[in-house]
C-alpha cells in the first residue's frame, strides 16, 4: 500500500521527517461558502530549503499559510509536519512544535516594546507558572534573564535592531516592524519559518537587508523557510523550489527557472492583468 511505503521511507530518512521533508501539504482543499480558496493543493518543503509560494492576488496563498499554521481547517487533505499529521493539532501546539510565521499585514503587539514582542516568541518554551511569576523568584527570574541574554546575543544583534529594543513597535517604520516580526518568529526556535510577504511595501534597501536575513537564517540557524512573495526578483534569487497557485489550485511547481518559464504561470498573471508587472519583476530579478 502507498501509505505503508511512505512510513517506511520516513523511518529510513532524516529525524522525524518524511523523505527529508519538514512539511508536506497533501491534497488540501478549503472553501469559504462558495469560494474555493484552495483546491487539492499538494507540495512539500525539503529540510533546509527555501521554498516560495507565488500566485496572483487572491490565489489562496495566505489561506494556505492559515491552513498550515492551524487557523483554518481544510475541508479535505492533510498537513504533515516533521513526519506527523497535524490535522487535529490546534495552532498553539503547532507553534510549540516549531512552526513560526509572520503575517502579510504585520501582527505585532502594539502595546508592547520591541523587546517584549520578541520575548513573546519564546512563550511556549518557557516554564514559568503563575506562582513563579507572582513572586518573580527562582525559575521566573532565571528564565527571564537567560531569555534576555539570548535574545540580545543571537537575535537583536543578528537582525541589527539594537537601537530600537526599548521602543514601542507602534512608532516603528514598516520595514523595521517586519524585521521585529521576523525576530519574534526566530525567538520561537522554529523548525520552519512561514513568511507571508516578507518584503511587501519595502524599499530596495530594506528588501536587500531582508533577503540577506532570510539567507542567513537558513545558513546560520538551519531553519527551513517557506515564504509567500510577490517580489519575483527576491523569489528567483532566494528560492530552491517554487510553487505557483492560481484560483486556489497549484498550477505548477519546480525550480525557480522552470516555474518562471512555465506558460500556465505566465497566463495566470496575464489573466490577472499583472503581466507587465510580472515581466518587470522578472527582469529586476535577473538583474539583481
Amino acid at each position, binding site marked *: 500500500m502507498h501509505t505503508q511505503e511512505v512510513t517506511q521511507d520516513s523511518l529510513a530518512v532524516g529525524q522525524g521527517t518524511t523523505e527529508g521533508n519538514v512539511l508536506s501539504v497533501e491534497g488540501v482543499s478549503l472553501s469559504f461558502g462558495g469560494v474555493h480558496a484552495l483546491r487539492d493543493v499538494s507540495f512539500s518543503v525539503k529540510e533546509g530549503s527555501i521554498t516560495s509560494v507565488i500566485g496572483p492576488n487572491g490565489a489562496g496563498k495566505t489561506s494556505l499559510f492559515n491552513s498550515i*499554521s*492551524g*487557523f483554518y481547517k481544510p475541508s479535505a487533505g492533510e498537513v504533515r509536519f516533521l513526519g506527523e499529521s497535524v490535522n487535529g493539532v*490546534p*495552532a*498553539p*501546539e503547532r*507553534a*510549540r512544535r516549531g512552526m*513560526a*510565521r509572520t*503575517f502579510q499585514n504585520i*501582527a505585532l*503587539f*502594539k*502595546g*508592547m516594546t520591541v523587546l*517584549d514582542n520578541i*520575548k*513573546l*516568541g*519564546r*512563550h*511556549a*518554551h*518557557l516554564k*514559568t*507558572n*503563575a506562582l*513563579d*511569576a*507572582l*513572586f*518573580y523568584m527562582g525559575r*521566573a*527570574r532565571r*528564565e*527571564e*534573564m537567560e531569555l*534576555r*541574554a539570548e535574545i*540580545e546575543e543571537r537575535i537583536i544583534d543578528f537582525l541589527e535592531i539594537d537601537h530600537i529594543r526599548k521602543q514601542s513597535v507602534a512608532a516603528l517604520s514598516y520595514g523595521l516592524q517586519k524585521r521585529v516580526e521576523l525576530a*519574534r518568529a526566530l525567538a*520561537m526556535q522554529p523548525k520552519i519559518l512561514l513568511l507571508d510577504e516578507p518584503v511587501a511595501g519595502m524599499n530596495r534597501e530594506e528588501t536587500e537587508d531582508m533577503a540577506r536575513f532570510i539567507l542567513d537564517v537558513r545558513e546560520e540557524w538551519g531553519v527551513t523557510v517557506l515564504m509567500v512573495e510577490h517580489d519575483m526578483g527576491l523569489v528567483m534569487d532566494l528560492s530552491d523550489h517554487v510553487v505557483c497557485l492560481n484560483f486556489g489550485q497549484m498550477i505548477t511547481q519546480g525550480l525557480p527557472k522552470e516555474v518562471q518559464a512555465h506558460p500556465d504561470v505566465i497566463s495566470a498573471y496575464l489573466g490577472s492583468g499583472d503581466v507587465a508587472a510580472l515581466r518587470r519583476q522578472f527582469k529586476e530579478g535577473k538583474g539583481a
Partner: protein
Amino acid sequence: MRIGTVKENYGADAALFDTRVQRGWLVVLAVALVLLPFVSGQYVSYLACLVLINVASTTGLNILTGFTGLVSLGQAAFMGVGAYIVALLEMKVGTPFILNLLLAGLGAALVGMVVGLPSLRVKGLYLAIATIAASVILHFVFANWTEVTGGVSGLTMPPATLFGMELNQPGEVYWIIMPVTVLLLFGAANLFRTRIGRAFIAIRDRDISAEVLGIDLLRYKLLSFAISSFYAGVAGGLWAYFFRVITPESFPLMMSIFFLAAVIVGGMGSILGGILGAIFMTMVPEVLKMLVGVVTPFWPEAVAVLSPVRIMVFGGLIIFFLIFEPEGLAEIWRKIRRFFHLWPFKT
C-alpha cells in the same frame, strides 16, 4: 534634568523600580504606610483601609480587563465569595487569618474560572453581560443558601486576631490590610515581567496572533480570570475583616461598576493606573462629603441641597478626566514626571 540611566546588566534593566530616585520615593512611601496608623486618627485609618481594599480589588480587575482585555462586571460578586469564605472560616473553624485570606482567594479564583468559561466564545459587551448574569446567580446563592450564608440577614463574624490580640479598630485591621495589599501589588507588577503577563497582553492586543505564538487562549483567559478573582477574593476577605458584617447586599453590581470605573479612570493596563483609579474613586466622594461638612455650620441646609450635587460633581470629574486624558490618571502622572525629568527644557 535627568539625562538617562546606564544599566550594568539585564537584571538591573528589568527591575521594577529602576532609578535611584524611584527607589528613594518608594522608601518614603513605605515609611508613610507604616507610620500612618500611629500619626492619624481612626477616621483616616478607616479611609486608608477602604482605599487599600479597593486598590487590591481594582488591581485584580485591571489584570483581567486592562491587561487581558476581558471586560468583567463580576468583581464585587467574587469579593463576596471571598468575604463569605473568610467569615465562615473565622466563625466555624477559627483558622489563622492568613490562611483564611488565602482560601478566600482560591475559592473566588475557582468561581472566577467557571464564570470565565464563556470568554473563549464571547468578548466585549457580551462577556460583560455573562459576568453580570454570574453576579446575579451569586447574589441569589448568598441570599438563599440560608444554612451557610445566613440568608438576607447575613453573617456577623469575630475580629481577626494577631498574636492573641483582637483587631477591632480600623487602625488595627490596617496591619492586615496594608501588607496584604502591598504583597498583591508586587505580585501584579511581577506578573508582567514574565511570560504569563506578556501572554495576557498579547491576548488583549490580538488574540489570533497570540495563538500562533503558542499561547493557548482558553487556558490563559481562564488563568487571567483566576488571578483576577483571586485578588477579588482576598480583597473581599479583607473587607470582611474590616466590616465584619457580610450580607448579600454588601457586594452589589454597583460595586463592580465602581471597580471597572476605577480601572478606566486610572488607566487600563497599568498597575499604577489601578492604584490611582482606586484612590480617586474612593477619595473623591469622601473629599466632596467633607467639603459639604465644612459649609454646613454656615448653611444648615447644605447636606440636603448639596448631596445630589456631590454625586453629579463626582460623575462630572470622571467624565472630565476621561476626556482630558483617555489613557487615565497613570498617563497624567507619566506626563508630569517627564516634565520634571526634562525640566527646564520643553518636551
